């Protein structure tokens, strides 16, 4: 077993890892969104009894983890929008001002109506019926439509139930006789729907942004990144072939040549990756519409795709360089390289959006360069982020590339001095 550890890895550990990762990743889409627990950022602009009851209802519902304060400060509408725009949270709820007054008015109207039908004079003060007020729901611009619909539906259910409870409580306190009010008033259910849930865009461009949440917008960059990382196959294959056929020795024998050849390879393959990504973007922009699909939207700062693509290409190239250095044979390197890219793509959100993965997997996603690659592209295309916004994921990609390259150089030196 000791003689072929890499072979053993490929035979046993790789498929086992693949099975575990894929089962975890695919677990979320097979579950009803309503059975999962999500972090929800909540801003209460009402501060009334109804909003407090709503918040308590959501907290007790069990499906949501409500965050209504950060650093002991209540979340404001501005905080909520900013944090969602940055992608720090995926879902936000704004309880607008006046919701308590509106629901009280609805309850009073309903109670007076019931009292009137019972032959009692209406006695509760009422204002004009304003119709339905909305609890606003916001999403991270990157969130997918299916996710939005499922969460909106679940929230609507809980909020409607909570509002009904509030109304019923008020009516029963007003109606001393405790009779079945709902059966006595045809319009009661309509009046009781005093509060609804409505999804809102984060800013004025939001409606347009909503148009860009489509399969093209996810699949083109996601699978283009996946394709870029498959550069590990030619890089690792060529490096091992060069060692096997002796051409690597020729380079090693030329003074200082490795200082040029190594970086030269990295630069060349990085440019190839970038070209590949740009071509895939062109497919998204011009070919997809020909297939009656939406065109790819590049965001407000498309020029940022250049440093983003170069950093993604660099991370992918150095990963291939690393695989090509540490494995001795093509038979070991190629299966490992391809399966590892599949695993990194699965945990990185290429197959299934990271936001619907279990919490543990969301943390695991942070180790995947494909996650940071997709995050960088999403920031540019969907969040309209600027240079500052992409700086961190780009820096992480460059850091992972430099680390892998450094490890490759160390491994190469070690092998040269220990293998006959």
């Amino acid at each position, binding site marked *: 077993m000791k003689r072929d550890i890499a072979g053993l890895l490929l035979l046993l550990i790789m498929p086992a890892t693949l099975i575990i990762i894929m089962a975890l990743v695919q677990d979320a889409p097979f579950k009803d969104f309503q059975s999962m627990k999500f972090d929800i950022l909540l801003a209460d602009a009402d501060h009334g009894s109804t909003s407090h009851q709503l918040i308590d209802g959501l907290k007790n519902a069990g499906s949501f983890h409500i965050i209504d304060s950060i650093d002991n400060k209540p979340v404001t509408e501005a905080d909520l929008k900013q944090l969602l725009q940055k992608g720090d949270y995926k879902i936000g709820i704004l309880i607008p001002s006046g919701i308590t007054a509106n629901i009280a008015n609805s309850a009073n109207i309903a109670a007076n109506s019931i009292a009137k039908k019972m032959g009692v004079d209406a006695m509760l003060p009422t204002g004009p019926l304003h119709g339905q007020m909305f609890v606003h729901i916001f999403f991270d611009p990157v969130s997918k439509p299916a996710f939005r619909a499922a969460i909106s539906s679940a929230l609507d259910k809980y909020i409607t139930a909570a509002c009904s409870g509030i109304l019923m409580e008020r009516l029963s306190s007003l109606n001393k006789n405790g009779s079945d009010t709902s059966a006595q008033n045809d319009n009661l259910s309509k009046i009781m729907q005093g509060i609804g849930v409505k999804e809102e865009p984060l800013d004025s461009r939001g409606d347009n942004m909503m148009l860009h949440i489509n399969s093209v917008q996810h699949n083109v960059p996601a699978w283009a990144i996946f394709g870029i990382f498959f550069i590990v196959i030619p890089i690792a294959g060529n490096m091992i072939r060069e060692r096997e*056929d*002796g051409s690597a*020795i020729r380079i*090693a*024998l030329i003074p200082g040549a490795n200082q040029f050849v190594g970086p030269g390879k990295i630069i060349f393959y990085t440019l190839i990756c970038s070209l590949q990504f740009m071509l895939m973007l062109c497919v998204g922009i011009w070919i997809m519409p020909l297939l009656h699909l939406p065109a790819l939207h590049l965001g407000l700062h498309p020029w940022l795709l250049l440093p983003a693509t170069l950093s993604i290409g660099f991370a992918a190239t150095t990963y291939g360089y690393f695989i090509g250095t540490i494995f001795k044979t093509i038979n070991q390197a190629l299966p490992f390289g391809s399966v590892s890219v599949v695993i990194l793509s699965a945990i990185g959100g290429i197959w299934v959006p990271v936001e619907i993965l279990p919490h543990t997997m969301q943390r695991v996603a942070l180790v995947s360069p494909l996650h940071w690659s997709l995050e960088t592209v999403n920031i540019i295309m969907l969040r309209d982020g600027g240079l500052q916004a992409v700086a961190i994921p780009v820096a992480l990609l460059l850091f992972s590339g430099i680390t892998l390259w450094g490890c490759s150089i160390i491994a190469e030196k070690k092998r040269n001095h220990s293998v006959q």
Partner: protein
Amino acid sequence: MLAIEVSDLHKNYKGAWAPALAGFSFSVTPGRIAGLLGPNGAGKTTTINILCGLVSPDKGTAKIFGFDCVKDSGAVRHKIGVAPQQVALFGNLTATENLTYVGRLYGLKDEAINKRATALLERLGLLAHAGKRINAYSGGMKRRANIIASLLHEPDLLILDEPTAGVDVQSRALILDFLKEYKQQGKTILYTSHLMEEAQQICDEVTIIDEGKFITKGTPNELIRNTPDCKKLEDVFLHYTGHSVRD
């Protein structure tokens, strides 16, 4: 100054059952063809790899024209040209492309590369095939191209690790004639081979190594004369290294 000066070299590879080198010492005078002969696993390739700076010795020193092979490996590599056992060329490139690439990495100008490459390709019978990919070459052609790539920067010391292994008689004769010519230019050649007849034919001096240790040294004629019952270099070799088959 000696062309090669190796002193008390030790090298143990991880996992190996015996040391590759166990205190090996030898030297080569400039302007000569020196044969380094030994059975399989004797330590020839390890010695060459240490001389080239590809492997570090555990102990001992190796110098080429006074430059330490570990500390001054850059200077050493300028002085040497190496044709390893493997055909150290890019199979998907043509001979011309390979030589241009190697020449540029040595810092040569394209004009100089073209001039030297053409002369060497012509001398070693490959000029007509310079535009063909190395993968399409026969074994003998690959060996010759391998030697040309190691000579492009005109090294003072040419190290050849079994340059005629697996080549036909014609290619071998061409290679050996070329090596004699190269020596005439005042260059030094270190040569390893399992072909004793060939070594006897071209070497000015021969060092025999076995089990990582120095065994004997001398001109082929001296060795034959001074070893009892020996009529050729192969007899001398078997006398010192025995008849048992090596792994």
